[in-house]
């Protein structure tokens, strides 16, 4: 019967394919009366010993002990591959019941997901921090359930700044001047790390665009990728950081992980980072400090907020089981454990209060402060995933080629995609 629902999402042409695909997979009801739900989650670990598989296996073990009629099949996938693999699963009719990954809107477009109300108890739902819950909405209905959050601030290497004799920069011009000093004093190999490579060009770009009052969309959700402010932003970056050699030679191909590794090795003066970098910097013995992100005319009071999402697929029809599991997984003890394990930030009020008050997270305090005012990617646009992939691929070229052309082409693609999706 699942087939029928699936077909409604696509065109009749796909019926045969999906029909073939959907009847094969059946992890559902088995003879002994237990139901198996399939959980697919991203791996937040930075080494094998703290892989998220360990966390989920533990949650599942405790959940199954309480709910003997439900089995949870856990599959944890590397971030690099999770998008492709989930796509493969969906195409293959081997749809997970619960998915925890970076985005949800494309699945809404294909009408695959339960609404958040259908799979969360009122108690769990009201526990979600409001701004995050809001970011999970598509056209006013919440589908995406925030799972963890993160925010960006500027990290700097204190030793490097001291050696160069500069203060913590507050404006773009301060950044350029400080970077120039660092270069002149040979205080660090890379004065300012600007990772605009395919790994996270969309994030770094947005942080800089926010500094000039820009962003990816206007208030109505229409794309404004090639707005005047954005073009100006990249022109500034190019003229003041890239061309004078104050950052990597080729920001468009430099990934965030390279920048982080270099910072943790003491080779970078300043960069935008998220809380994961705290531990990396400590491990590397780097004396770091965080500060608000410099904007064009002064430090930003908002920042880029990022959430990763949980979503429930209606393909398997296991609404009740999913609800039980999600309520369990969103209990404070579990979310707290996960957030503490990876130094990530919470999305639920009780966990946030706990983390702010239990005194164990001094490091994260500056991040907690900017969380409520965080700005998000246009996640509710069903075209965002495609647009984001385009920005990842070629957005970085805006600091090497002509920014107007690069952003103009991205804007065109974004508009085309949005039109295709009927937005």
């Amino acid at each position, binding site marked *: 019967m699942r087939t029928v629902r699936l077909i409604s*999402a696509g065109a009749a*042409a*796909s019926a045969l394919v999906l029909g073939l695909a959907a009847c094969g997979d059946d992890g559902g009801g088995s003879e002994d009366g237990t139901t198996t739900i399939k959980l697919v989650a991203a791996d937040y670990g930075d080494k094998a010993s703290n892989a998220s598989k360990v966390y989920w296996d533990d949650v599942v073990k405790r959940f199954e002990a309480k709910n003997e009629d439900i089995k949870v099949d856990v599959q944890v996938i590397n971030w690099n591959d999770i998008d492709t693999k989930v796509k493969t699963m969906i*195409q293959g009719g081997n749809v997970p019941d619960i998915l925890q990954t970076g985005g949800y809107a494309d699945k809404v477009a294909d009408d695959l997901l339960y609404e958040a109300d259908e799979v969360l108890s009122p108690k769990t739902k009201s526990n979600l921090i409001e701004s995050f819950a809001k970011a999970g909405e598509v056209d006013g209905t919440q589908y995406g359930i925030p799972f963890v959050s993160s925010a960006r601030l500027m990290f700097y290497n204190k030793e490097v700044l001291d050696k160069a004799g500069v203060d913590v920069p507050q404006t773009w011009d301060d950044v350029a001047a400080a970077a120039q000093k660092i270069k002149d004093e040979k205080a660090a190999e890379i004065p300012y790390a600007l990772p605009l490579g395919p790994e996270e060009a969309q994030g770094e770009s947005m942080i800089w665009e926010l500094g000039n009052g820009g962003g990816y969309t206007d208030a109505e959700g229409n794309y404004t990728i090639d707005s005047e402010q954005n073009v100006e932003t990249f022109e500034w970056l190019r003229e003041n950081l890239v061309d004078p050699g104050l950052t990597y030679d080729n920001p*468009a191909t*430099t990934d965030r992980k*390279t920048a982080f590794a270099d910072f943790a090795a003491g*080779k970078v003066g300043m960069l935008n980072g998220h809380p994961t970098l705290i531990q990396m910097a400590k491990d590397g013995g780097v004396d770091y400090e965080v500060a608000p992100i410099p904007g064009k005319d002064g430090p930003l009071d908002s920042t880029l907020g990022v959430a990763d999402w949980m979503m429930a697929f209606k393909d398997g029809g296991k609404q009740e089981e999913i609800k039980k599991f999600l309520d369990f997984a969103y209990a404070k003890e579990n979310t707290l454990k996960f957030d503490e394990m990876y130094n990530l930030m919470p999305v639920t009020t009780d966990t946030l209060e706990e983390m702010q008050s239990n005194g164990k997270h001094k490091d994260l305090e500056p991040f907690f402060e900017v969380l409520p005012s965080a700005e998000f990617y246009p996640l509710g646009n069903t075209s965002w995933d495609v647009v984001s992939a385009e920005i990842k691929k070629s957005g970085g070229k805006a600091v090497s080629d002509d920014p107007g052309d690069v952003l103009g*082409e991205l804007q065109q693609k974004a508009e085309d995609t949005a039109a295709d999706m009927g937005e």
Partner: protein
Amino acid sequence: MPVTVKEPAAGTGPGPGGRKTGPQRRRRGGIARLGPLPWIGPAVLLIVVVVLWPIYELIRTSFLNVSISGFVRGSAGTEKYRQLFDESGFGSVLTMTVVWTVAVVGVTMLVSLGLAQLFNKPFPGRTVTRWALIAPWAASVLMTAIGFRWMLDQTAGVLNTLMTDLGLIDGPKDWLGDPATAWPWMMFVAVFVSLPFTTYTLLAGLQTIPHEVYEAARIDGAGARQTYWRVTVPLLRPAFLVGFVINLINVFNSFPIIWGMTQGGPGSDTATTTVFMYQLKSTDIGESAAMSVVNFAMVVVLVLIFLKVSRWNKEDA
């Protein structure tokens, strides 16, 4: 030049025609009675299912609208092809694919000729050095590519360190970040991994040249260079052609080298058609399939040219 050399019996391609030990027309009972099906049936079946069917699927997908999650949303007509041809990088991707293929295959063939000559000579440690030559062949291409990416890392790459210490460059460079330097390095790696197979093919070719031919050439008073150009090169032609064709196909379709080193970036500035196809897969499956079909068409053209050149039709009629 009085030396006349008869070419080895067969021409090119796998068709072993015209040899006295080759296929015979008349067969007495036995296997012939059953007909070819039990013998070649499984091979044909495997090829049809795993090679021909995907070709059909591929072409079909290129005319479909497929959502990013993979759902078919109906027919797209030729829309995906139009989108593909409108991509700003498409023209340069095509050009660079040709440059990439020609350069890598050309250099590989030339260097392999030299290597085969070298390793065909007797010298102390020939066996061991030949083992070394095999390394890039035995190692996965992807891993070799990732290894080079690591060695070229701006911060910690040993090649950067080495070239700096040798005074070849002023300081560590981000070789793979800039298409102008990324291309030559990727071509270098592509040649590096293609050399072993090609060299071995040519070595095999060299060994089929009867020693008496060289003796004859020597007796006729031919110098070393003359012998090389008039004896070795013509006799090496079949092996050379085989190596050439296999390299052509491999290099044209090469994916792991570029994927492992630059992923085709920035944008698609270091992508060949194959890598471009893979990049498109993350934004539009239909368009990616259209790229594959174009790619496929180019391979078909290559095949046709090869058949023409190797006179497939005239042989083995």
